[in-house]
């Protein structure tokens, strides 16, 4: 049934789509965008109320809403016919009569579906100039959301998201006729852990983020495809930067992982990417102090250390470290008996009820599964115990408490920090090497469903900071002008295949922008323990 194909012609282009497909989706496959407002692929069942997507269907007596009309065999659809264009121009004219047209101060400008469609298909002037526009003051809906009623086109996407996806109906359509607006009860707030999505869903600048308020103009933003570093769900995101500063995180659709959504925790979890107090040069211990040095010096020193040691080593890694960094750092210590641990902060779980298998996960470590597949363990306490007997301790950007720092500093082993920020308690470290954070490098994370997904560099690295895999790769390649060190994350990834066959043969280009599910197997599997939620 589902595979039965229906043949239709849309603006002259023939397409075959499964039975039951709506005209709007069929048109997409023919490369034609039918303008629309209330329809959103992320929301169940379009209410077909904005009437923007009206198209001409031959033999139908009226224009049909493309968002709910299903294709029929032999159907001929005109999206761009005079009749359809006129109807859409009519809708746009009506949406604009009460619209404030405050684009110059509206955060949505530049990514506004009203602006865009009016530009494409709207009338040149208004015929409403004789009347005052409807006016209602801005309302505070929740911790991060403001409602600007004047800009609202009543598409009800926000109401339906809360009702059908979050399943917590705290928004409503109030009143009727042209007095209608989006309302909230005074007893309630828009504070559901996923409520920020209404800002993305809103096609205009009616629901806006306080966090992003007047921060940047859409056209000044650089957008980078990435993966949320918030938790082990691995939601796909876009990192928006302005002048090399991360200003906003937005969901990037991935039907396998997060559909069109991200949680508010993930959305707000970006300030650390902009931290200014960064280690910017390799620091090499010289007597009682550290000297800033160049990379050659630092890498030589690290190489000597690694090669000169025998016995055991401990890696204390951040759960936000890339697969490439985790893998190569471990490979770098290949000769030693290594205890590798990944740090997994734990928080509350917050599911998005309407979407199966989507939740803010308690494990706030985006690469927990990647680390496990590479043989990292989650028993942090055990790893700290090993520190007391290890010859080498590598801290890979882990976030250490003062007590832990003290414990490491007091241990017998040499301490090497690959870090983004200076940890005072590790003053005694032999080397403190500046590494990039996830927004400053390319890499991959493996999410809890063993989906490996790429993230891309969104801002430049501070000073001389380098990805940790680069440091490890240089050490592995040995001193001198060697050609075998990886120079890109993709090359670093390819090196993992030898030791971990699970990754063998897989390439960055195959992963694309939405990732690939890994097959079963892998080094860590079987020895991995789930995180004990009570402990940390």
């Amino acid at each position, binding site marked *: 049934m589902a595979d039965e194909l229906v043949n239709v012609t849309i603006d002259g282009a023939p397409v075959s789509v499964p039975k039951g497909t709506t005209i709007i989706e069929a048109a997409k496959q023919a490369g034609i965008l039918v303008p629309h407002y209330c329809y959103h692929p992320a929301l169940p069942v379009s*209410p*077909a*109320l*904005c*009437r*923007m997507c*009206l198209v001409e269907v031959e033999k139908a007596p*009226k*224009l049909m*809403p493309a968002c*709910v009309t299903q294709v029929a065999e032999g159907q001929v659809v005109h999206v761009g016919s005079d009749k359809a264009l006129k*109807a859409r121009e*009519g*809708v746009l*004219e*009506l*949406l604009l*009569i*009460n619209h404030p047209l405050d684009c110059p101060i509206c955060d949505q400008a530049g990514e506004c579906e009203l602006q865009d469609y009016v530009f494409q298909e709207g009338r040149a002037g208004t*015929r*409403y100039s*004789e*009347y005052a526009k409807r006016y209602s003051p801005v309302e505070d809906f929740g911790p991060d959301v403001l409602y600007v009623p004047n800009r609202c*086109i*009543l598409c009800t996407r926000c109401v339906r998201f809360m009702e059908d996806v979050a399943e917590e109906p705290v928004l409503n*359509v109030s*009143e*009727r*006729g*042209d*007095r*209608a607006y989006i309302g909230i009860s005074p007893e309630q707030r828009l504070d559901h852990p996923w409520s920020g999505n209404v800002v993305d869903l809103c096609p205009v600048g009616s629901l806006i983020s306080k966090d992003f308020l007047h921060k940047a103009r859409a056209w000044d933003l650089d957008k980078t495809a990435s993966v949320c570093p918030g938790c082990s769900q691995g939601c796909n995101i876009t990192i928006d930067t302005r002048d090399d500063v991360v200003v906003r995180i937005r969901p990037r659709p991935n039907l396998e992982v997060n559909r069109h959504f991200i949680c508010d925790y993930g959305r707000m979890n970006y300030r650390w990417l902009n931290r200014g107090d960064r280690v910017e040069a390799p620091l090499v211990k010289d007597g009682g102090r550290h000297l800033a040095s160049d990379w050659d010096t630092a890498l030589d020193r690290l190489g000597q250390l690694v090669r000169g040691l025998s016995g055991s080593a401990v890696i204390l890694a951040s759960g936000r470290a890339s697969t490439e960094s985790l893998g190569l750092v471990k490979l770098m210590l290949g000769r030693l008996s290594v205890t590798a641990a990944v740090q997994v902060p734990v928080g509350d779980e917050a599911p998005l009820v309407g979407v199966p298998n989507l939740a803010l996960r308690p494990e706030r470590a985006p690469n927990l599964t990647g680390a496990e597949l590479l043989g990292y363990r989650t028993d942090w306490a055990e790893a700290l115990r090993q520190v007391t007997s290890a010859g080498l301790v590598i801290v890979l950007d882990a976030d250490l408490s003062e007590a832990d720092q003290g414990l490491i500093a007091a241990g017998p082993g040499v301490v090497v920090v690959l870090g983004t920020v200076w940890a005072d308690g590790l003053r005694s470290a032999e080397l403190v090497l500046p590494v990039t954070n996830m927004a400053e490098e390319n890499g991959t994370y493996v999410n809890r469903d063993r989906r490996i997904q790429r993230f891309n560099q969104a801002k430049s690295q501070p000073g001389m900071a380098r990805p940790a895999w680069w440091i490890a790769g240089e050490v592995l390649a040995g001193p001198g002008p060697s050609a075998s060190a990886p120079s890109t994350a993709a090359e670093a990834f390819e090196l993992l295949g030898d030791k971990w066959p699970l990754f063998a043969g897989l390439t960055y280009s195959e992963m694309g922008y939405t990732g690939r599910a890994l097959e079963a197997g892998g080094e860590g599997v079987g020895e991995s323990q789930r995180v004990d939620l009570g402990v940390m």
Partner: protein
Amino acid sequence: MGYPHPSHPKENPVLSKHFGDPEARSFDGWVKRGGYEALRKVLRMSPEAVVEEIKTSGLRGRGGAGFPTGLKWSLMPKADGRPHYLVCNADESEPGTFKDREIMRWTPHQLLEGCAIAAYAIGAERCYIYIRGEFTEPLKIMQQAIDEATAKGAVGANVFGSGKRIEMIIHRGAGAYICGEETAMLNSIEGKRGNPRIKPPYPAQAGVFGMPTTINNVETLAAVPHIIMRGGEWYKGLALGNPKSTGTKLISVCGHIQRPGNYEVTMGTPMKELIYEMCGGMRPGRTLKAVIPGGSSVPIMSAAEAEDCLLDYEGVVAKGSMLGSAGMIVMDDTTDMVYQIWRLARFYAHESCAQCTQCREGTAWSVRILERILTGKGKQEHFQLLLDLSDNMTGKTICVLSDSCAAPIVSGIQKFRHEFEAYIQGAREPAMAGV
């Protein structure tokens, strides 16, 4: 009898025969007048046979759309194991229409009997009677009738000992014209805003609570017992105009008329006879200017069109309007057409459910343009603007409320343009101040 005026000889009182007779209100009174015989008869028939009889009669929906009732019933799925529902549309809010109110006020059991027969025919055990909230009197009378009929076993868990369960439940509206639209009504019963739904799915597939549902108007259902008793052929024979319009029709006549009220005529009766003979014509010294024949949602007819019109579905269409709910608003030469069209537009703007862009914004803008004209600030461009806007509001929305707002505006400009011109050119004093 007749109410508030005695029946006129040219009327054909079938449904309205007992209007004005308080004794017909009680269960016993109704039984004495032949009531509930049809229901007893139906219980001995198969549901299919009942549907066939209604099909034969040619009965068409009296709520406005004129959809064949037998056909509507036959669209309900058969023995699908799901609960079926009947919804009786007693929301009567279409300006000019007040016939369902009289049916409920005088002959509540006529309606209950019709509901029970319809429920039997479509396999429904429950019938929700949706009565508009303002109808305090019909609400009370209908509830009394249900209580009485339940006590007498005519409705309830075991209808006349047949083992059939047919329950009647009144659902009170709360002030929303749009809930008369059948799918909005379903939402309203479900405890939602009265937003019309997109179709498909049609109510027969997924109606109230997602179950197969038939919605019928009060007058449609009230006609059913008579058809069962006297036969579909009899009803079909009541057609003076077109064979596709059969039976009798209650016409609510209001406005500038000597004897306003409900008149039950055979389909195809000339409108002229209704206005000038049955209703007693215009007030002294006045002449007919316009008629809105089908409740306010249909195009306005000029006096000439009205006087030459046959009262049935086809007859009114032939004169450029629609029979609709047959609420006839009669306007004489004192009527300010622009002002009254503005008042109608205001009605639709007030009642728009706010879903569709064209309706939500278009109705309100229409009001503003008409206000502009009425305050003496009209311009020639306003004609085109009103016509463009009306075109934009027609045939493009979820339900036809939007079209209904456009209909009187477009026909008003067509037929009474000089009245608009008089305001625009300053030949007429502004009817409103300011804005």
